[in-house]
């Protein structure tokens, strides 16, 4: 009478002390994709439920930052923008940047926030940071809509490069996930990570071309500058959306390489630490 639901699974389940080579078992994460969906949905609900501005928060933050940036960097300091109106120039960067900060914060704290799940039920723990990164996409979508409206208002038409926009978004997601894997696993034991995170993202913003164009960086430093993948993400967003912006150069490959190394090492680190999460958190 036991239902056939689980027929497709392989038996038996072996429970042993951790030993041998670490396997990533990404297939198990895929099999639990439904959890990613439910948890991402929950994050969105929680974010907007007991709040007055609700969905507005997704827009308020980048919008206000854009206004402040425009006042300071276009009005006072006069930062070059490669020919684009400054509000557009900064918002095109602030939208992916806000997503990144949101995703990295959520994924860093996910294991501690979902302590109740971790200490009571088994599932591949990788599901948690992944759902944090995916859940942030809703906010991104709302903020992106604001960006589109502003583009229309300024009468800026996108070029064919806009088709590559999803790739740059993917790069932002993977960057957030890679950092989130490392930081969340460490945060389980050392909550210092959580305290240091706002400072870390703030510093990262200054070394990313959010308020200024990356063309102000001297050529010989461009390669070093591209070690920060968010530089490529932002350059990509500007290039895809604003006519006349330079394409992210060959150094983008440096960013991609950095993300891949961080992501793969992060996956292994996370898996290595995973066994201890329930005991330590």
């Amino acid at each position, binding site marked *: 009478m036991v239902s056939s639901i689980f027929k497709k699974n392989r038996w038996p389940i072996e429970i042993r002390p951790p030993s041998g080579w670490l396997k990533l078992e990404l297939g198990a994460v895929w099999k639990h994709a439904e959890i990613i969906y439910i948890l991402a949905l929950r994050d969105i609900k929680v974010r907007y*439920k007991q709040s007055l501005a609700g969905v507005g928060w997704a827009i308020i933050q980048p919008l206000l930052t854009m206004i402040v940036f425009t006042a300071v960097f276009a009005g006072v300091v006069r930062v070059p923008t490669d020919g684009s109106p400054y509000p557009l120039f900064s918002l095109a960067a602030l939208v992916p940047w806000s997503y990144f900060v949101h995703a990295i914060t959520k994924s860093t704290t996910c294991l501690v926030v979902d302590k109740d799940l971790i200490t009571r039920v*088994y599932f591949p723990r990788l599901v948690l940071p992944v759902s944090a990164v995916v859940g942030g996409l809703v906010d991104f979508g709302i903020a992106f809509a604001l960006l589109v409206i502003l583009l229309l208002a300024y009468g800026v038409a996108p070029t064919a490069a806009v088709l590559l926009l999803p790739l740059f978004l993917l790069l932002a997601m993977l960057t957030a996930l890679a950092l989130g894997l490392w930081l969340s696993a460490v945060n389980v034991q050392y909550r210092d990570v959580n305290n240091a995170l706002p400072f870390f993202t703030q510093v990262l913003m200054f070394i990313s071309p959010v308020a200024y164009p990356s063309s102000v960086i001297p050529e010989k430093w461009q390669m070093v500058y591209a070690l920060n993948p968010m530089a490529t993400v932002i350059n990509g967003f500007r290039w895809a959306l604003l006519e006349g912006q330079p394409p992210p150069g060959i150094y983008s490959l440096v960013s991609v390489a950095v993300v891949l190394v961080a992501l793969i090492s992060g996956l292994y680190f996370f898996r290595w630490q995973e066994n201890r999460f*329930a005991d330590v958190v």
Partner: protein
Amino acid sequence: MSSEQPMIEVEGLGKCYWVGGHPLIDNMGMHALLERVFRAPVNLITDRFLKREPTCHYPVGKGHMRWAIREVSFSVGRGEVLGIVGHNGAGKSVLLKLLSRITQPTEGFARLHGRVSSMLEAGTGFHGELTGRENIRLSGAILGMTRAEIEARMDEIISFSEVEEYIDTPVKRYSTGMVLRLGFSVSAHLDTEIMLIDEVLAVGDQRFKQRCIEKMRGVARSGRTVLFVSHDLEVLQKISDRAILIRNGRVEMDGAPDQVVAEHLATATGMNSG
């Protein structure tokens, strides 16, 4: 009762924990951090090559190791209800945590021939911000069920739990009893081959207790295996086919429920801690 192949085989299972201040957790100072960075890899390598007994090293700080359970071996057949008896701190809950894969053993192994649903410490991995209905979906998803499979059982789960009225309210607003009923209902109705239940009956009222007992019997009759921890010895005797007594992390006795309970009660008087 039990058929050819056991559903759960446990062989020499052991788990050790740090007690009294793990040097790496409780004093997160520089000294401990350096220990971890330099000592851990060395231990990892020497363990592998010397095939050393799996124990935890890092002899720093005031902490010491304690085996929560050790050399635990038993097996449970299909459709069998196994009661687990023992004093507080004997290791019952750790055993269930190991079998539900929440934590990993230090030594030994266990083999489970089926999917496990568990209800450990009345909470079952519910999320407070999600509604009852969403939590049911979450539990199903955690077990790897598809959305259609979960929806098919939704009504049954809700009606057994008797929280219909609040099913679309976030679980954080539920009373303890409501969470408990929903939790039990979820693990009883999601058709896993193995069900692990830790002390559900402690919080419920008499009527709910009665329904749980009936449900667990029904679950076992349908061929599912139930492992069940309780301090309610009367109930345990009533529904278990067999029982094991765990004392100081080891299986002290494995046999008929009334004999195991009698043995447990006999030792209870000699103990100074309950």
